[in-house]
């Protein structure tokens, strides 16, 4: 079997990589590019934390600080969080999980990566031209008329990268609908596929609106069209409506794939079919669809009318419930399982703790009375970092370690993996928990110079950031180390269920010799449980 060419050894020329239409290679290309942007965003984050050690702005001028936090936001949100799990891991694993040779539109998949690279290049051009100082939210009228920084190229970069996300979503939906192997009914699909199907719905329905919003800001900035400029009669709050209509579902684009990964890891390392499979799958869809009705909770204090605020507040509470259902179902899967604690499982446990705090603080912010006090303070910053780093990045790293043997054919170093996971968990808590306290005390976000009484919390946070920064480097070395010194990975290192574990690792270019026929139900670990429904 080994002599057959696998997807890595099937062509070594640069062209075979840059012009590949193999979903696995495109997944690897995405993996490299999102990791690069993760490190860039992380570097900006460390600069921010260093600056905030002292209340006075003594490391950078205010203007440079504003550009650093904006680029930290843009790099992390648009170029790491949104594509990370769907494009890097999803591209690689999803077609195999549904039993297909490749995604429905392989060439469009490659186009999606090139659009991502063009968008990234434009963002880089804006960094070189001095960076953007509007915050990743590009609020008008500052971004359209008052900012003198390279907003135009950053806006175009986000516009183009948006289409990369649309094409990935489109590919996934068509593949899940039309390319499933015989016998792979909807309720035999892995929960990872359900989560990515729900995410792709958001990508299809939400991303075009941010594309047109950024286009309108571009038109207003370049030609003076008067959409959002109050001096020309426009209304800046309309920009916020258009922006947040996409940007709130976008945070579900970031967390749902991670939930998909967690469902896989929980099943694989407890050797049990996830408790309430239908409820976990259903809550993914519920989160995706309800997520489009709640954007107004970002605008409670933006002179949005009280009545609209009340409507957005109650629906925000409803969208919180499915996340709770998922956590309880994962916990119930632990019950009577046969649990082992390889690195991915450490990330799962870390995910539980951090996502609980993140999700519950979301309920704080949904309460209008509290949000009036804590909006745009470090309480909000801590909340969304608990969801994004605590939720998505833990899921991403867990998934990366879990499928790494399949992707590279090598086993990573188990001890190093666990140390990194624990380091990230501790460093993260030390970084962001103090920010909750500073936030409720009233420390506004995006402040270069802050009042003295907040300094203690910022010192703790910067300390945590150093630990977190170091811990994030370890997995990168772990993976690179495994390529050279790692043991060869067997086809099924975790003894897990799933079509991707039935083929050699690394898989051949066409994944399956013969199209697989699925007979048993998903996660059929239990011995006598052959007949799937």
């Amino acid at each position, binding site marked *: 079997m080994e002599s057959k060419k696998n997807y890595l050894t099937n062509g070594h020329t640069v062209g075979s990589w840059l012009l590949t239409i193999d979903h696995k290679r495109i997944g690897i290309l995405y993996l490299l590019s999102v990791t690069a942007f993760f490190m860039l965003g992380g570097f900006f984050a460390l600069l921010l934390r260093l600056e905030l050690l002292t209340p006075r702005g003594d490391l950078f001028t205010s203007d440079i600080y504003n550009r650093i936090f904006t680029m930290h936001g843009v790099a992390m949100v648009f170029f790491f969080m949104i594509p990370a799990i769907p494009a890097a891991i999803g591209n690689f694993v999803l077609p195999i999980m549904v039993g297909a040779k490749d995604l429905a*539109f392989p060439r469009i998949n490659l186009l999606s990566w090139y659009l991502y690279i063009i968008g990234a290049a434009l963002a880089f051009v804006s960094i070189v031209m001095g960076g953007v100082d509007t915050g990743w939210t590009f609020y008008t009228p500052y971004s359209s008329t008052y900012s003198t920084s390279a907003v135009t190229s950053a806006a175009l970069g986000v516009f183009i990268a948006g289409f990369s996300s649309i094409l990935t979503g489109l590919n996934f939906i068509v593949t899940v609908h*039309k*390319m499933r192997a015989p016998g792979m009914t909807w309720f035999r699909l892995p929960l990872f596929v359900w989560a990515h199907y729900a995410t792709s719905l958001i990508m*299809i329905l939400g991303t*075009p609106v941010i594309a047109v919003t950024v*286009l*309108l800001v571009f038109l207003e900035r370049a030609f003076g069209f*008067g959409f959002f400029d109050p001096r020309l*009669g*426009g209304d800046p709050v309309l920009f916020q409506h258009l922006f947040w209509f996409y940007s709130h579902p976008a945070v579900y684009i970031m967390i749902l794939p991670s939930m998909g990964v967690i469902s896989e890891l929980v099943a694989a390392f407890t050797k049990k079919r996830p408790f309430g499979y239908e409820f976990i799958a259903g809550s993914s869809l519920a989160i995706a669809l309800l997520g489009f009705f709640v954007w107004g909770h970002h605008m409670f204090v933006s002179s949005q009318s009280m009545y609209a605020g009340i409507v957005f507040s109650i629906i925000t509470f409803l969208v919180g419930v499915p996340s709770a259902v998922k956590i309880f179902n994962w916990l119930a899967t632990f019950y009577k399982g046969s649990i082992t604690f390889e690195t991915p499982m450490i990330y799962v446990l870390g995910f539980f703790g951090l996502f609980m705090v993140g999700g519950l603080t979301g309920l704080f912010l949904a309460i209008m009375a509290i949000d009036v006090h804590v909006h745009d303070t470090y309480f909000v910053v801590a909340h969304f970092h608990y969801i994004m780093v605590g939720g998505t990045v833990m899921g991403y790293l867990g998934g990366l370690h879990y499928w790494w043997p399949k992707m590279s054919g090598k086993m990573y170093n188990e001890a190093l993996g666990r140390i990194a996971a624990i380091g990230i968990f501790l460093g993260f808590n030390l970084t962001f928990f103090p920010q909750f306290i500073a936030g409720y005390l009233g420390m506004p976000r995006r402040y270069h110079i802050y009042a003295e009484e907040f300094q203690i919390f910022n010192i703790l946070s910067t300390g945590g950031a150093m630990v977190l920064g170091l811990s994030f480097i370890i997995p990168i070395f772990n993976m690179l180390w495994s390529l050279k010194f790692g043991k060869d990975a067997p086809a099924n290192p975790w003894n897990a269920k799933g079509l991707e574990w039935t083929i050699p690792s690394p898989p051949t270019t066409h994944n399956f010799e013969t199209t697989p026929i699925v007979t048993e139900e998903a996660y059929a670990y239990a011995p006598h449980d052959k007949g799937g429904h």
Partner: protein
Amino acid sequence: MSTANTKKFEPLQHHFANLNQQYECASLGMWLFLVTEILFFGGIFLAYTIYREMYPDAFAAGSHHLSILLGCINTAVLISSSFTMVMAVHTARLGKKHATTWFLLLTLILGCVFLGIKAVEYTEKFTHHLVPNNTFHFEGFDGPGIRIFYSIYFALTGLHALHMVIGAVILVIIMIQNMQGRFSAEYNSPIDMFGLYWHFVDIVWIFLFPLLYLLGRHA
């Protein structure tokens, strides 16, 4: 299939089981793309709705300035090009290569007529300083709403015209491929898919015409 120079074109791609699965994937993929286009234009329709509520007089005054005649002709031209496009798809499915080429050519001509009329309207706006940059000047109404009306007018019709231009370019490519005999009764999904795109662009104009050209005509 007499494809002289290009290697024999194999319609069925490697990762599909049969042509029908390939067609269904293409069809679902195209419709999903049209869903994103609906929401793409939707963002500007939201701006239109909000600002029309805010500045009804300005929108009426701005709309009066647009020529209804050119608008009507353009609507008729685009609907007929939709018709010729669906005929092209129809004949392609029957495998009549020449008829399909003619209908595709007719669609292209009608599309260019539409763009021509649009160009006439745009030059008229440029000469009358109605482009909403700082040289914007409009007699008869001095509120801010008029400039927003023209911003939305240029955003909507500009994007629509851009989609028409992209459509025309793809139409030329498909026509050449058709003449090379790439399509047959069994394999003509590119024509079918392009037809969906073209009809979508027509539908956008069907909404654009009444909302921009026919405002407050009864006053």
